[in-house]
């Protein structure tokens, strides 16, 4: 099992969700994060004092899948990301186990 984590710009979420849904991955969760963007920085001005801003809003989409579906999922994410500006970074991490609380089932009871 793998946990696929993708970082996108907030504006890309609708397109990414659409692409995922079309590929059959209806379930996802996302969090709002702040992260650096290469070569991007802003000047914040507060009552005459400057501050350099280097952390910008992003979203972090997480989906757990079986090994067989990983390529499909990554393709869907790439499709969604490219349809909405092209930014994005995808990490694939190893997922050792997954447990459903209600039934107590272990293992690949996911997509």
């Amino acid at each position, binding site marked *: 099992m793998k946990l696929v984590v993708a970082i996108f710009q907030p*504006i890309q979420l609708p397109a990414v969700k659409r692409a995922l849904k079309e590929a059959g991955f209806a379930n996802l969760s996302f969090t*709002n994060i*702040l992260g650096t963007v290469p070569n991007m920085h802003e000047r*914040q*001005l*507060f009552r005459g004092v400057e501050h350099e801003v280097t952390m*910008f*809003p992003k*979203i972090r989409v997480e989906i757990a899948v079986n090994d067989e579906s990983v390529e499909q999922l990554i393709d869907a994410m790439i499709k969604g990301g490219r349809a909405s500006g092209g930014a994005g970074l995808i990490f694939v991490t190893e997922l050792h186990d997954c447990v459903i609380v209600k039934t107590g089932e272990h293992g690949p009871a996911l997509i």
Partner: protein
Amino acid sequence: MKSIVPIGIGCLLLFAPEVFAQDTESSFNGLSTLWILLAAFLVFFMQAGFGMVEAGLIRAKNAANILMKNLMDFCFASLGFFMFGYALMYGSEGSLFGTGGWFLLGVESPVEGLPLHAFWLFQAVFVGAAATIVAGGVAERMKFAAYLAYSFIISALIYPIVGHWVWGGGWLSNIGFYDFAGSTVVHGVGGIAALVGTWMIGPRIGKFNPDGSANVIGGHNIPLVALGVFILWFGWFGFNAGSTLGFDNPGQIALIAINTNLAAVSGAIVVMTLAWVKFGKPDVALTLNGVLAGLVGVTAPCAVISPMAAIAIGAIAGFVVVYSVLLLDRLRLDDPVGAIGVHGFCGVWGTLAVGLFAQETLGAPADGLFFGGGWAPLGIQALGVIACLGFVAITMAGVFKVIDLVIGLRVTEEAELRGLDMREHGIESYSGFQIFINE
């Protein structure tokens, strides 16, 4: 020792009339002056109301920007109205515009017993209200510098000319057109300018889909919207009841106040019910707009109608505002705060309502249709609406076009996505909070 300063200031204020005594002409009517100044202060406070409503109905990343626009449009409106606008509006009795009184020099108060400065201040806060309506329609994507230019021009030129036609001795007042406190002059003008601006600047990124359907771009702070609506409601008592320009008829002032209140509540109840029936839930933001719809609707007729009529007018304004919001979505016009519906459409309704519900016995120039006056008064009201709003639409289209060519109306796509607070002002409204997206 610390109390010396407040006591000292208190003494100064107590003896201020003696300290700052000026040469007065024949007696000013103290009570009228007090009333008009108080009303002016109430209407001034409506700027805060507009600010909170607009800020609450847009996204957090643009809150400081819209509040800055709200603050500065009042400043530029005051300046523009002081330098040029008052002269155009009240300087003299030409049929199209006034002359004389530039920079408020060489002109006398048009109202007996009321100091010129009190009259000017009362009029100036109305200009500020009209100017700030547009900020809501073009919110989240208009360049700040462009907005400043717009606010000065509308306050110095466009609004005063309309105001002159209706209140300053111009041609509309001469044919019996009646707009007591400004459903057309303030709200109609602001609403139609917002319509033109919204149309020209285009919808926000992500508002409409290619197939024409609209997406929700939710306001970030409903409590602020509610606060803003209550502030506006409170200030509206000055807006309407102060337009008597004197305190000689307390009965009329009280009638205006009760009508103002009843129209507001009926607008709210109708919108809440309509939304509940039509959409399934009592929609908070829409109901808050309903309060404002009722208030705008009663602004023109409030002095010359019965309280029952006020309820009816507010109720119909509620229908108007709900359907106008739906209509604007259909027309792909993105109005984030409902300014066009509340001020534009309901302003028109309020002006026409004079032609239906006005009573001569209460001081109207003619009875409305429902009181035996026939169709003529309604026709005159309609003519006035078309003339004023047509004038504003054409001139504002020109003004916005010129501003677009010289400064540019809309921010870049990148700035719009990042947020105008950071891009236009370099400030985070909510520093220390992480601004979420929820979709």
